[in-house]
């Protein structure tokens, strides 16, 4: 199809339905990773030389780095069987019939619109609600906020991009950060100018957007001094992907007096290894809040961290992990207190059911310089049947004078008394258990934007139906 004709078609779709067809790429590199593939990714994106060099250097780091020798097994990952550059045309070849029945059923029950289902199932590559996007973009432009794809930011705001890119998660951080640094594609770039308050959560208006979602997406956020914003990533409906590995990197800079909240709901289909590196650097009196929900994927390894580098910085992590059907949710948080009078809080809740395993793995580090620092960690785990398991692996290293660090964790099943009470009031066992699980995760769900909270509760209800009794 000629480009001009496609544009007309896109415009027509945008006007009538609010979404557009993708522009098709003609590039194909097959499977496996090589310098040629990495260079081609960079060339295709018309990147400056420094980025191409960065990618190639990261590839060498990736080769040198070893796989993690702790945590869940990652032996199954075969880096030669992964496609590192995916052209849109291939995504189009998949049909609705290829999508697993469980995922289709969940879409049905959640009431996800068909166009959105197509995108989430990978049948359609792009689902941009152009109308909503344009109006929000206008509002953001007026405030001087930059919110675009990473590719666009590299082209249009190169100096700003270069100043912060890979400064918090260098390629040498770990093997998967190196892989992402070499092969990154997609992801969001956000810059909030000083003293700017973003009223609406970013991304909630166009929660799914091809350019911001991918296998190796990279997100870079800079909340300048005194700013305040909330970014929401992912969605509660299951996202189907054939690709076995998702390795993202997120870097967030929270400047003096700024406040930033990063909410993620991850619900990848059950064949994915989800290995993500997320890190925030928090300056004086800044506040960083991670809200993290992990529902999907075969194995998730994700430990968002806060580097509290100046006096008065605060980091918070609220997380829910829901492990079912032999899933491993190995999640947690890291709080590094590197300056005095810093504080942090971690609240992690997990539910294991039908052979799932949830692990909390976390670190609280109070350096010698971080006198008068405070940290509190709470981990609660619920195991709903005899096939499931849970574990907590916290690590607290305290060297700072006058530091106060507390950690508590508990593991329990659903209390018979509560179950009995609810059942004596007419609920069946599944309904009663669902209600108790909803109550268990409520402190975190209430922090989510309303539409996510509603959908998450509904989703857990659906998951419980097939797993209990």
């Amino acid at each position, binding site marked *: 199809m000629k480009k001009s004709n496609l544009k007309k078609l896109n415009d027509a779709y945008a006007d009538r339905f609010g979404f557009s067809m993708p522009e098709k790429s003609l590039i194909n590199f097959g499977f496996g990773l090589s310098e040629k593939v990495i260079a081609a990714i960079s060339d295709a994106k018309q990147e400056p030389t420094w980025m191409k060099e960065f990618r190639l250097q990261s590839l060498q780091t990736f080769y040198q780095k070893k796989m993690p020798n702790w945590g869940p097994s990652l032996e199954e990952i075969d880096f030669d069987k992964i496609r590192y550059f995916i052209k849109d045309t291939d995504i189009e070849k998949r049909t609705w019939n290829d999508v697993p029945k469980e995922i289709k059923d969940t879409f049905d029950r959640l009431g996800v619109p068909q166009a959105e289902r197509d995108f989430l199932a990978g049948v359609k590559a792009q689902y941009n609600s152009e109308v909503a996007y344009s109006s929000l973009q206008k509002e953001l432009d007026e405030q001087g906020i930059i919110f675009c794809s990473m590719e666009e930011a590299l082209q249009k705001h190169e100096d700003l991009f270069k100043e912060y890119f890979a400064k918090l998660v260098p390629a040498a951080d770990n093997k998967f950060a190196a892989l992402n640094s070499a092969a990154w594609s997609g992801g969001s770039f956000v810059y909030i100018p000083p003293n700017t308050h973003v009223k609406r959560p970013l991304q909630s208006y166009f929660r799914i957007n091809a350019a911001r979602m991918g296998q190796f997406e990279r997100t870079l956020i800079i909340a300048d001094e005194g700013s305040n914003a909330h970014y929401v990533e992912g969605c509660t409906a299951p996202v189907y992907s054939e690709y076995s590995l998702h390795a993202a990197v997120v870097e967030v800079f929270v400047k003096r007096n700024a406040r930033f909240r990063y909410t993620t709901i991850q619900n990848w289909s059950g064949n994915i290894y989800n290995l993500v590196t997320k890190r925030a650097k928090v300056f004086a009196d800044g506040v960083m809040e991670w809200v993290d929900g992990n529902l999907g994927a075969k194995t998730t390894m994700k430990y968002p961290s806060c580097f509290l580098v100046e006096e008065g910085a605060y980091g918070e992590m609220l997380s829910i992990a829901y492990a079912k059907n032999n899933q491993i949710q190995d999640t947690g948080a890291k709080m590094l207190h590197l300056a005095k009078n810093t504080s942090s809080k971690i609240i992690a809740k997990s539910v294991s059911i039908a052979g799932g395993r949830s692990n909390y793995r976390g670190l609280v580090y109070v350096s010698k310089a971080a006198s008068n620092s405070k940290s509190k960690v709470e981990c609660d785990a619920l195991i709903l*049947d005899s096939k499931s*398991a*849970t574990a907590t692996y*916290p690590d*607290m290293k*305290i060297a700072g004078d*006058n530091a106060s*660090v507390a*950690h508590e964790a508990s593991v329990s*099943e659903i209390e018979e008394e509560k179950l009995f009470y609810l059942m004596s009031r007419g609920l069946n066992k599944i309904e009663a258990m669902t209600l108790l699980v909803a109550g268990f995760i409520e402190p975190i769900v209430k922090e989510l934007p309303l539409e996510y909270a509603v959908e998450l509760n509904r989703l857990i209800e659906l998951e419980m139906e097939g797993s209990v009794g």
Partner: protein
Amino acid sequence: MQTVLLQNQKEFSLEPKQNTLYLVLLDKESSIGKIKVDLFFKKSNLNCQLLFIGILKNKSNWYLESNIKHLVPKTSCLTEVYLSQSDESKVDYLGQILIEQKASQTKSFLKEQSLIVGDAVYNRSQPVLEILNNRVKASHSATSSRLNEADLFYLMSRGFTKSEAEKILQEAFFNKILDSIKNKEAKKMIEDYLC
């Protein structure tokens, strides 16, 4: 509850006996030390307690480890670690509770409290829980904190010097444990140690 004092060895691997308190008192004079205690619950209907008490000072450096493994149903264990740290002392504690899949109706708890009295101390704590059965109750808690400033201020305003006030508060910290121990023999051992 009978008391067994674990001493003169670095590593202990034990099958606990019913209603027993296993007590570890860290050598106050030692500059470096390592104690590892493994308790394997292989028989049902057992209940025991493991207690570490230590006053660490003079740049002493300690590694402590407790591994509580519940392999059969209906066992319970309480692990407690109370440490007071001063004078650049260092401690690294790994406390693991493992509840195997067969070990239903297990109760296992771990509590670690470190009181930081002096400056430049280092405290590392790794309380690990691995639970493979749903019909259990397990928890751990670990805290590391300094003497309460308000308490210190109150005592000093009553004429105590700073070191006297610190000593009183340190005693109060350990008295909580003494109050909970009913066995006279164990109580005496701990009192002697704290003197």
